[in-house]
């Protein structure tokens, strides 16, 4: 184990998997960088955020492929390569850009296996950056994981820690189904212990990041860190909060969530996606349909408002869920006197 950043953990997973399996390739904009420039054939970028630095030198330009700015071709080519024997990891630089390539996700990769009668594997991974917090404005800050979770045939992973980033990415690459791998841009610099060598985190298994008995918080991606902070803060008051990080929204570890809700009877869901038809509503709905008896208080959703992400930094902070908002939600579930509660 060593302490690494989230970014380093991603690099490590890619590196290990590329060394392990020659069928793994990487493609995207500037994953090498510098081609056609005036400084000779140097690697100028290694990915916009440096994640694949040194890869072209190690694995060669046939496996580390710089592409034009054409996301439909990038994702489509990944799809075609996956159908024909490779295991491509394609990069869609910001998740906001799924708008220009959704067809290859929605109607192609997600449906191949089903509409071809189970006669193919589709081992493609799309790495993409989600999340607000950098003042990047309405077209570079969205969290659209729910939209992809609702597409049957896709799997969706959202690592919240360096270790999960490494372990989930390795699992994604070895998986024979298409995986949308959502990296949170604000987490790139976060550090944590990361297991050495090959490391896999299974899909569909939630991580309970805080154990507790009074209230369950289900949180996704960066929101897990905020939920943990709130749990730690409230622990000092004797309020015992359980924090569940499902890690993948598809497949979703329904059992762990329901078990916790059965135990605590109180549910807060924290998500950076839109309040409508998002993961927050999905988890609340899960609890209401499957564990209504257990609920001692109305579940509370903590999400941004139903608005685009403003470029304005202080409004962006206001837009985001915050520890204070989460704490308020937790207290609301504790204060609630449910008319029918036992």
């Amino acid at each position: 184990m060593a302490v690494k950043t989230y970014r380093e953990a991603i690099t490590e997973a890619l590196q290990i998997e590329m060394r392990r399996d020659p069928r793994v390739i990487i493609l995207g904009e500037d994953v090498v960088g510098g081609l056609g420039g005036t400084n000779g054939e140097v690697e100028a970028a290694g990915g916009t955020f440096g994640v694949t630095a040194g890869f072209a030198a190690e694995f060669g330009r046939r496996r580390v492929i710089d592409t034009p700015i054409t996301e439909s071709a990038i994702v489509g080519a990944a799809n075609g390569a996956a159908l024909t024997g490779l295991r491509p990891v394609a990069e869609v630089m910001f998740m906001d850009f799924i708008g220009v390539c959704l067809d290859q996700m929605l109607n192609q990769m997600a449906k191949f296996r089903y509409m071809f009668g189970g006669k193919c594997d589709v081992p493609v991974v799309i790495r993409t950056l989600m999340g607000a917090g950098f003042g990047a404005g309405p077209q570079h800050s969205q969290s659209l994981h729910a939209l992809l979770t609702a597409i049957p045939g896709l799997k969706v992973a959202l690592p919240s820690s360096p270790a999960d980033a490494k372990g989930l990415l390795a699992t994604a690459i070895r998986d024979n189904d298409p995986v949308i791998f959502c990296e949170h841009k604000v987490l790139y610099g976060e550090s944590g212990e990361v297991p050495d060598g090959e490391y896999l985190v299974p899909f569909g298994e939630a991580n309970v990041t805080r154990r507790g008995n009074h209230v369950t918080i289900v949180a996704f991606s960066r929101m897990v860190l905020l939920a943990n902070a709130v749990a730690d803060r409230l622990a000092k008051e004797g309020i015992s909060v359980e924090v569940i990080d499902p890690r993948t929204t598809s497949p979703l570890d329904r059992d762990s969530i329901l078990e916790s809700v059965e135990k605590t009877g109180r549910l807060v869901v924290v998500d950076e996606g839109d309040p409508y038809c998002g993961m927050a509503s999905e988890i609340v709905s899960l609890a209401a349909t499957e564990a209504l008896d257990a609920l001692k208080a109305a579940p509370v959703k903590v999400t941004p408002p139903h608005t685009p992400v403003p470029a304005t930094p202080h409004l962006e902070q206001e837009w985001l869920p915050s520890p204070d908002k989460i704490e308020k939600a937790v207290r609301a579930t504790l204060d609630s006197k449910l008319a029918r509660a036992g």
Partner: protein
Amino acid sequence: MSYDPVMLLEAYRRMRAIREFEERMRREVQMGTVPGFVHLYCGQEAVGVGACMNLRDTDYIGSTHRGHGHCISKGCDIGGMLLEIYCKQGGLCNGKGGSMHIADLRKGMLGANAIVGGAPPIAVGAALTHRTLGTDGVAMAFIGDGASNQGTVAEALNFSAVLKLPMIFLYENNGYAEFTGAGYHLGGADIAKRAASFGMPAEKVDGVDFFAVYDAVGRAVAHARAGKGPYAVEAFAYRWYGHFEGDMQKYRDPKEVDRLRAAQCPLARFESRATAEFDIDVSELREIDEEIQELIEEKVAAAKAAPKPPREALYTDVYGSY
């Protein structure tokens, strides 16, 4: 130019199979036995077959909503296709894809595709596989005149040019995109020129003439196999029937189809040249005709009689594991 007679007979077999298959589907749709929508390939037989006779099973094609002809051209099993069109168990997609989604990866057929412009980027990916693995395999995308306008096609052209992929863009200009003539919807009126502008050789060819298509695509495939990058061919061949079977075709001079049948039949064209120039005997062709007729008869009957997929099939094959 000379041609291997075995190849020529196989080409004829496939063209005849397409014709017989599609004419039969047409009658079946009219009788209401076929589920979903069916887009027929009659009139374009020489394009699919002329192109695919240059390919191996390890080469890939990406197809369109009008995919039956491409499947047969690439050697897909006709019985499996019919089972699929009838959405029956044992169909090439086990009955869950239907006419617009037939695929057969073992034959290098990456799927019909009901999204106009959906397949070209996928075919590009198959070409990328060949390049990455260092084989001399190629990939080809069939692209309608209407589809040629889709942005995804431009992206596929550029992507394969930049990466010098072994990719062939096979444009099928059949005169119409749904109910609109190619004379209206094609800015610049020249598809091949568009492909050329992305930095690849591009030629135009009479798509009714098997030999012309075969030769042009032969040049394209040789170019791609040699690692020289992508190549485009625009083949002209009107479709004989409606956009889908059932289309009223108000956009067409009612006599147009008669004229096409009389003057633009790819099979008749093939026959006259093959028998006159390449030592093929008419009787050999008639034998094939009979054989195909029996085959289609038998396979349609089998498809109709075959069992439907079980109820559980609804839930399988969404994921490999979940």
